[in-house]
């Protein structure tokens, strides 16, 4: 294939590029340099670290599973529908992405809290969500579901409907088309979107703190532990930050692999 013609970007664009790279790169480099490398294994093997790591990993796996189960069909509905309501729905689903996390926490509290619209009847039935691991998962789903829907809907739109139409023409019902054509064909995009959602869930802080509380092993996820330890045990705090940075980097690389954006 012939190289496409490209005009070189202006020099000022490269200047902006360098500034942007420094702005994002330097703080991350700073974290890597400051991290207590020599003590890293012993720090991460400690009880507190293990507890927070385990809780974060477990809750993020659950929330990502929920995000996939809810997000894939939702993305399909949005990608294959037309009308004003689609735009309204799309706006609704993208709101948590731009909402300050603490506002998300207050919204969840107002809904699922003891005195919330949903929480109050549940509380009467003996079910209380606040201060439980379930609250952590709900917070994570709330903030990460939009990432799944946003990226998958775009992928489903651009992938087109040709194969789905053929399958339907051969007599497959909509559910069968969805399960045997749409989902397998979109698998890389689903994987990429799930990785993105997982990364977002892993970093969840504000909504968890507001809605779920902070108890070791129950609701104190990695970001909360890092915030708490940042001065009393700054080495452990930095070590855990490094873990989050590495996991985030791996997930971003995985995302771009799966969505086929090879440079």
């Amino acid at each position, binding site marked *: 294939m012939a190289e496409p013609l490209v005009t070189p970007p202006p020099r*000022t664009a490269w*200047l*902006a590029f360098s*500034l942007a790279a420094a702005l994002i790169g330097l703080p991350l480099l700073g974290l890597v340099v400051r991290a207590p490398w020599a003590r890293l294994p012993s720090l991460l093997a400690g009880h507190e670290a293990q507890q927070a790591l385990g809780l974060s990993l477990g809750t993020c796996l659950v929330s990502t599973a929920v995000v996939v189960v809810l997000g894939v069909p939702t993305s399909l509905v949005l990608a294959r529908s037309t009308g004003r309501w689609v735009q309204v729905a799309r706006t609704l689903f993208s709101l948590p992405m731009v909402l300050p996390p603490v506002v998300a926490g207050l919204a969840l*509290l107002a809904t699922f*809290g*003891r*005195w919330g619209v949903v929480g109050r009847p549940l509380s009467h039935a003996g079910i209380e969500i*606040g*201060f439980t691991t379930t609250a952590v998962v709900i917070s994570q789903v709330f903030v990460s579901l939009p990432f799944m829907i946003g990226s998958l809907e775009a992928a489903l739109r651009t992938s087109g409907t040709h194969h789905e139409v053929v399958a339907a023409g051969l007599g497959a019902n909509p559910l069968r088309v969805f399960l045997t054509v749409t989902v397998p064909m979109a698998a890389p995009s689903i994987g990429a979107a799930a990785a993105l959602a997982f990364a977002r869930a892993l970093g969840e802080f504000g909504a968890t*703190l*507001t809605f779920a*509380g*902070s*108890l*070791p092993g129950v*609701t*104190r996820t990695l970001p*909360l532990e890092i*915030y*708490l*330890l*940042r*001065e*009393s045990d700054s080495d452990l705090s930095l070590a855990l930050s490094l873990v989050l940075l590495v996991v985030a980097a791996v997930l971003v690389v995985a995302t771009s692999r799966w969505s086929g954006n090879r440079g």
Partner: protein
Amino acid sequence: MLAALALATVTLAGCGITTTNTATVFAASSLATVFPQISDAAQAPATFSFDGSSGLVDQLAGGAPADVLATADRTTMDRAVKAGLVGTPRQFATNRLAIVVARGNPLSITDLTDLTGRKLVVCAPEVPCGRAAAQIAADRSIPLRPVSQELKVADVVGKVASGEADAGLAYTTDGTDRVSVVPLPGAERHLTTLWIAVVTDSPHPAVADAFISAVTGTTGQTLLRQRGFGTGG
């Protein structure tokens, strides 16, 4: 574009510069009501940044520009002193832990022993209010079973105010229109001390001194007492 960037930088930097007669005060959240009152009453102009004490020391260590640091306990101030962030600190008030409950105390909670089956929130042992709570509980041999160990005292009060928790361990001075404060037996033996000091790199040390004098002087001490703090006098 460069010009725009440069302009933005200058404008942003400009926001940090206060007029020379105004002190920038970093103070523990528990002082959020009384410090502005003292500033007004003693005509010691100040702009405030209220946060958990530990967070404030962090910000100073990170180079945040401030003139005065006021912490909610000795340990946190000691850390700032050891790091060379502040000059010699002075104790200016004491505070004691208390049980915060929903306004009017509908569950009739009067002691730690009334908390069985109730949702209790405390501060994590890493922050001042949590250290004091752990000491009092150990002192009285009453194990605490909190549903959450919050990262700062304001979050404890918030959880009680929103009704998510039945009770919280916070300070006597944390009463609001949403929460009532119940004295905590045993807290008098574990008073927390509040400390104030001039920041080493203060751009306006004279203004900083003036604010500290206002806090430690008659006007400040009277207002602190009215708010529920303990003072020397």
